[in-house]
């Protein structure tokens, strides 16, 4: 009986899976078009899975072993089952391999079950709780049914007496297993992640994120520009169908592991955001329905079951009650911790900014100080609404060389909007003293500089970002410099990764941009700086999101600290897992209330290390962390630490070295009309 039943079961499960796959693909194709290389994308899947995805999964050794055993066992067992039992190929060797595959899968499913007893809060419950049992059903069923083929049990054992009953039980177990593994894969069960995930890897919106054989850096963190010229299309994402189809596919690939939830600073602070829930809400919107079936942690303070949506219905409603509430989107600090942790390579931040773009550009509904900041950026080119002509007032005594006078310099020092902030002015002064100590040929844009557009872009105001960026690019095009150095990782990121696409053939915007910590490290390596011995207390280092996760610079700041003689006491969450200070993405401007403040949590991380001082490399981080009430560790920018430790050469040396500099600048001054 089983010999006839098994092929029928297998092929009908496969047929149903195929029908489900077509339905699922049609759900994704509701999205906006986005051209992808179909064949070469599909060819990339094994490498992207085995190398890039596994690289992320492997950060949790337990689940990586579990997944290798389970998924590897399942893929092999499923293929062999189709050959051996579906087509009835009577091969003892294949049957033995099939047995081995099911054993591997069974061991994996035991590990899955162990992890879920009891499940940690970040994991989703509901249908996910039955998954280990379903995995066992499939593996045990396939194992037992293969025993006669492998010759371990006599052929025909299931056709006699008690064997009939055993066969019926076995058939039921196999139906369960096939139902979850084949049917459920395309009809929305937990195994959907395998089907959607494989295609998501093939058609990812940022293919440059994945490594290739040539090696090198593979990072893609700049936001995609929005076409503003087309008068008919709406700007940003209003309804789920406004996402590109491969974004929808990406949402559907979510395996609800909750790693994003575990690292999200807004979620930890009790703000109404949970990246996992957000992605699930997008899936709910794409398929239509309510979030009542969601079985993970909700948005803090927002019970599950009150929100619903459709593919062509608004995601955010002014009155609330649509798919998500606006404050969920405005809680994000764009720290990218979720994207960094996501084993399915889902792009949460892109999705959030896409939806913010609609709220700002079409609704005109940026919360709290958002509208004021954007108006200031439009009218005065800086978020504070300060007189743009007063940009250099803080440096009245520094006699900074201006690009407008020099026309060219080795280093263009991008000062950023921190020039209006008294705390950041100390950092800038420190860095300038470092540059002068190393005799660097540098110049600043002065009043020609504008806000880089970072805040405008993260607040969804792509129009203001592009306007600022294009004017900055035109300004930069007038001057010759070999690199841009800045103390602000946000400007650094935008100049380095987001201006390029706005350049034109006449004014290309591909700059060599460096964070000041990287540049100081170069100066140290070139022996241009000499330091006193470090006499302070213990120091920890806070990685800025836009320097670390966005641009992969983890080492240079630590190297500089080491060169100062400081041994860094690392926080539990540092490097790519660094916790955001709460200052990015316009979060301090939109200021969505939570149960606690993100910088307070970060200073608690600092306190656990026992460090007396936090070294930072970002004006936002400085402001956010210094806003934490005392007693707490001191906060100092790396530039300040370096400047404090500088050994300035003897007055005689200095005089001979510094005198030619002003003279040189004067000759340049005369040369220019």
């Amino acid at each position: 009986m089983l010999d006839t039943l098994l092929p029928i079961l297998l092929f009908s499960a496969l047929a149903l899976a195929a029908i489900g796959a077509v339905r699922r693909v049609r759900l994704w194709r509701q999205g906006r078009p986005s051209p992808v290389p179909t064949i070469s994308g599909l060819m990339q899947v094994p490498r992207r899975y085995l190398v890039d995805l596994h690289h992320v999964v492997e950060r949790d050794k337990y689940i990586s072993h579990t997944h290798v055993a389970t998924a590897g066992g399942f893929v092999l067992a499923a293929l062999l089952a189709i050959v051996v039992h579906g087509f009835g190929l009577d091969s003892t060797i294949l049957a033995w391999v099939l047995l081995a595959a099911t054993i591997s899968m069974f061991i994996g499913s035991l590990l899955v079950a162990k992890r879920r007893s009891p499940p940690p809060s970040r994991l989703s419950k509901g249908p996910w709780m039955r998954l280990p049992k379903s995995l066992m059903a499939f593996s045990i069923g396939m194992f037992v049914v293969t025993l006669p083929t492998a010759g371990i049990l006599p052929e025909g054992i299931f056709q006699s007496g008690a064997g009939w009953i055993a066969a019926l039980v076995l058939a039921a177990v196999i139906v369960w297993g096939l139902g979850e593994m084949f049917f459920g894969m395309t009809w929305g069960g937990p195994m959907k992640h395998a089907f959607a995930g494989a295609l998501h890897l093939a058609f990812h919106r940022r293919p440059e994120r994945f490594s290739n054989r040539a090696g090198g850096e593979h990072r893609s963190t700049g936001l995609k520009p929005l076409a503003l010229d087309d008068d008919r299309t709406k700007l940003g994402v209003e309804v789920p169908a406004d996402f590109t189809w491969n974004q929808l596919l990406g949402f559907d690939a979510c395996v609800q592991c909750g790693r994003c939830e575990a690292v999200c600073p807004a979620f930890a602070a009790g703000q109404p955001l949970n990246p996992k829930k957000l992605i699930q809400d997008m899936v709910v919107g794409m398929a239509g329905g309510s979030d009542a079936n969601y079985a993970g942690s909700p948005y803090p303070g927002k019970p599950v079951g009150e929100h619903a949506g459709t593919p062509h219905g608004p995601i955010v409603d002014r009155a609330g009650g649509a798919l998500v509430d606006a404050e969920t989107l405005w809680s994000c600090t764009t720290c990218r911790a979720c994207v960094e942790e996501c084993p399915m390579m889902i792009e949460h931040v892109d999705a959030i900014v896409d939806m913010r773009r609609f709220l700002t550009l079409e609704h005109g509904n940026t919360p709290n100080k958002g509208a004021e900041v954007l108006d200031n950026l439009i009218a005065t080119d800086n978020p504070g609404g300060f007189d743009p002509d007063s940009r250099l007032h803080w440096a009245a005594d520094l006699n900074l060389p201006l690009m407008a006078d020099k026309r060219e310099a080795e280093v263009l020092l991008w000062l950023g909007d921190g020039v209006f902030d008294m705390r950041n002015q100390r950092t800038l002064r420190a860095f300038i003293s470092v540059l002068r100590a190393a005799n660097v040929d540098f110049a600043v844009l002065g009043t020609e500089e504008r806000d880089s557009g970072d805040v405008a872009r993260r607040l969804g105001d792509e129009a203001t970002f592009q306007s600022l960026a294009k004017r900055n690019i035109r300004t930069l095009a007038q001057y010759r410099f070999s690199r841009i150095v800045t103390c602000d990782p946000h400007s650094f990121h935008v100049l380095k990764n987001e201006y390029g696409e706005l350049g034109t053939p006449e004014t290309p915007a591909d700059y060599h941009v460096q964070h000041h910590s990287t540049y100081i490290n170069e100066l140290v390596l070139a022996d241009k700086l000499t330091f006193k011995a470090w006499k302070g207390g213990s120091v920890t280092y806070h990685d800025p999101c836009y320097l670390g996760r966005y641009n992969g610079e983890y080492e240079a700041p630590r190297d500089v600290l080491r060169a100062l003689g400081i041994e860094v006491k690392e926080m539990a969450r540092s490097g790519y897992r660094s916790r955001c200070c709460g200052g990015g993405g316009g979060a301090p401007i939109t200021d969505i209330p939570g149960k606690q403040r993100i910088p307070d949590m970060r200073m608690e991380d600092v306190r656990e290390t026992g460090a007396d001082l936090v070294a930072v490399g970002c004006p936002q981080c400085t402001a956010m962390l210094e806003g934490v009430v005392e007693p707490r560790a001191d906060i100092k920018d790396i530039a300040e630490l370096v400047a404090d430790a500088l050994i300035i050469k003897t007055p005689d040396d200095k005089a001979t070295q510094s005198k030619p500099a002003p003279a040189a600048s004067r000759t340049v001054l005369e040369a220019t009309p």
Partner: protein
Amino acid sequence: MPHDVSNTNAKSSTPSGLNVTVLVSVGRHPLTARARRSDQDARAVEMALTLQSASVSLLHAGQQDSENEEAIRGYLGMGIDSVDLIEQKPQADVIPALAKALRASAAQLVLTGTRAETGEASGITPYLLAEALGWPIITGLAAVEKIEQGTAVVLQALPRGKRRRLRIRLPAIATVDSSAPPARQSAFGPAKRGELAIHLEPSAIDEALGTWHIQPARKRPKRLKIVKSSSARDRFKAAAAKADGGGGQTLNDVTPEQGAEAIFKLLKEEGVLR
């Protein structure tokens, strides 16, 4: 928050609803002198948009160039579909054109800022318009409380946060100053897509204006009030005290004739009238 107020009222222009016309001008940022929506005019638009069942139309008279257009589009970004733009020469007196357009429209309430941020910025336009149309004018509107049977009950803002409730007969002109609620955010998409309905009108050239030399106003330094007192309490009182005019006179419960008489007398004393 003003942004949360649904602007569907403005769009559902029922024939029975109130017709509100807002006169808008090209503003100028105080620090950078960039063209923008004028702050007070934008507050007027905001007030019109929050009125129940009002149909709002925007009217601007002036020259049409790219910088001005961007500023005018700022008002469209508040959620309005189109603005009527009466094209005028740079040195035109816009009063006749505006009066003609308002007479031809069915406007019952005309809102505008107290004074423009560019040009003469004398703040006299609403008065001249009211005179030309023969409508009452009310200044410093803080809120419109209700509108029924051809009259409106409004709150007028007085100095130091005082409010006065007034009942005015429509049609009327009302000016809005900084005591009105702030304008909502202007969204880029609607601003770009909104329509500028351009009407050509002959310009009444203001001959006098042509001879004027216009330059940006500069803030004059204020004379410091030096308080000779040793006690901090006295200095604080002096700093926080009302700047009393001294010579003023409050008239309560007087007939219009008596009131007019008092004003007439004051104007003669001050040498405004001879």
